[in-house]
């Protein structure tokens, strides 16, 4: 009688558990964690087009890439643009999500599941494709947006051609695309609020608005906070919208950190400099993650 397969004895042979995780683990180490660590090294070298042909041409330059990037006005502009997008776009998206969730969750509403599907649909679409659609919606002369605004007396705005409007335009587009995702999380949060709380407040004579203000919002606050931070972290990685809609312009008003990194790394092949930009972005994301861990009452699992 053989006991093959019984994971009892701690024999010299490898436990079956390792065989099951091995393919995933190897792939993650080789194609993700390994490159992340290699990126640290890369950011300390002058790896460029010549090194791409012959890696021996790359030299160790210490912190020079970092000091170069930090002295580059374009880096600071990209940082400002990225923070603008994340700090305004995150709360705006979650606000829209909450509004949609309250709507879908209200007891008097008909066509609930249709509404949920409609609100969620933009999220599953291909970003490149809908970014192109919005380019035309924002067209100063023929776009639907200016036409609709014209009915309420707003003069045509060159949304993507004006440095002041380009980023707000991208924020609105991203809000449209993403609010459905957080809506689902908000709905789950709303359904976790015990109904007795609402009923007790109603018995005490609280109006619908008072119940929203004093029951719904406090009960939902931890979820909302979590969702806002996670959305902001995603938004710090802005790339496709400016790449497709504005190419980072006008006047660099929509150049994000990732777009800047992409241009340095894959257009000018300054991979060392690009790696330094990537780590500065990483540092920024770590700050947001720490804020979330610190302030979130529910510890992450």
């Amino acid at each position, binding site marked *: 009688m053989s006991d093959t397969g019984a994971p009892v004895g701690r024999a010299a042979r490898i436990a079956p558990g390792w065989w099951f*995780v091995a393919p995933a683990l190897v792939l993650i180490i080789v194609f993700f964690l390994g490159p992340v660590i290699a990126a640290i090294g890369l950011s300390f070298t002058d790896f460029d087009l010549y090194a791409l042909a012959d890696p021996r041409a790359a030299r160790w330059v210490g912190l020079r890439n970092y000091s170069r990037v930090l002295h580059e006005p374009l880096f600071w502009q990209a940082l400002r643009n990225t923070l603008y997008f994340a700090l305004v776009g995150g709360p705006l998206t979650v606000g829209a999500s909450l509004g949609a969730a309250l709507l879908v969750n209200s007891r008097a509403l008909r066509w609930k599941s249709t509404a949920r599907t*409609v609100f969620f649909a*933009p999220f599953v679409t291909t970003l490149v494709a809908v970014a192109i659609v919005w380019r035309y919606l924002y067209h100063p002369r023929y776009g639907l947006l200016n036409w609709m605004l014209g009915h309420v007396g707003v003069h045509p705005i060159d949304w993507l051609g004006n440095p002041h409007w380009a980023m707000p335009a991208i924020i609105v587009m991203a809000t449209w695309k993403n609010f459905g995702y957080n809506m689902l*999380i908000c709905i789950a949060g709303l359904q976790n609020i015990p109904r007795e709380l609402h009923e007790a407040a109603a018995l005490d004579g609280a109006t619908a608005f008072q119940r929203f203000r004093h029951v719904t919002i406090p009960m939902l606050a931890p979820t909302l906070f979590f969702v806002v931070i996670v959305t902001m972290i995603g938004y710090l990685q802005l790339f496709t919208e400016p790449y497709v809609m504005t190419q980072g312009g006008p006047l660099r008003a929509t150049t994000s950190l990732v777009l800047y990194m992409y241009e340095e790394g894959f257009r000018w092949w300054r991979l060392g400099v690009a790696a330094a930009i990537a780590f500065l972005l990483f540092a920024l994301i770590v700050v947001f993650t720490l804020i979330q861990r610190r302030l979130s009452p529910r510890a992450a699992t």
Partner: protein
Amino acid sequence: MSASRAQRDRWASVALHATLIVFGALSLIPLLWMVSASFMATGEASSFPPALVPHSPTLEHYRDLFGRLALGRYAFNSALVAVITTTAALAINSAAGYSFAKLRFRGRDRTFRVLTAGLAIPVQVAMLPLFLLVKSLGLVNNYGGVIVPGLASIFGIFLVRQYALAIPDDLLDAARIDGASEFRVFRSVVLPTIRPVLATLALWTFLATWNDFMWPLIVLSDDRKYTLPVALAGLVGEHAQDVELMMAGAVITVLPVLTLFLFLQRYYVEGVTEGSVK
């Protein structure tokens, strides 16, 4: 009192549904206009006031895209990459997720903690050395270079693990006592039990791969290898003035994923709530 109460409720309901219609219209207008403009004659979408529906619907842009511009090839590339990635990712991530949930081995929990910590690292950090690695493997401008880095997913492993934790140990032990090997237990007992989460994972992987842009843009340099999003971004550079043509291209890109979602949204939605509300 009850009369006025009923009246107030009716007004509240009207306001509620009016808000719903406004919100819903805002969600759908960009997509509806995309479809509508794709059937307009050349130049019709560039008029003032904007045309909302095609005057005389035409398929010329779709013919143009599939004929002259060979969009069929890009659609094929996208489908190929997405199907291979999804199939392989299912096998790899479900095995790992199950093992982290149910099998005992030394270092298991520590390994899993390291992986979940890795979730916080933005993928862009890995992209530069990853490109050099892929280049040294000869996979630049090759579907392999697009597919392989996306196979194992920490999020996917996490999703499967959460679900597999609920499998009763007795069920697994019964199969082992019957003499089944660990692989047999996984294939015949575990996989059928976790089928719903596999559907979620498959759908997520397929949509994410189909919609992905930045990495295929970096890896694929030969335009015959492009996936749809990369081809579309290139097309808009040359044909920015051909609004109707671009809208037809957008429809072709969005339609497969939107259709999949409409039919399988139950699984998709479960993934959102499972994955985020821990």
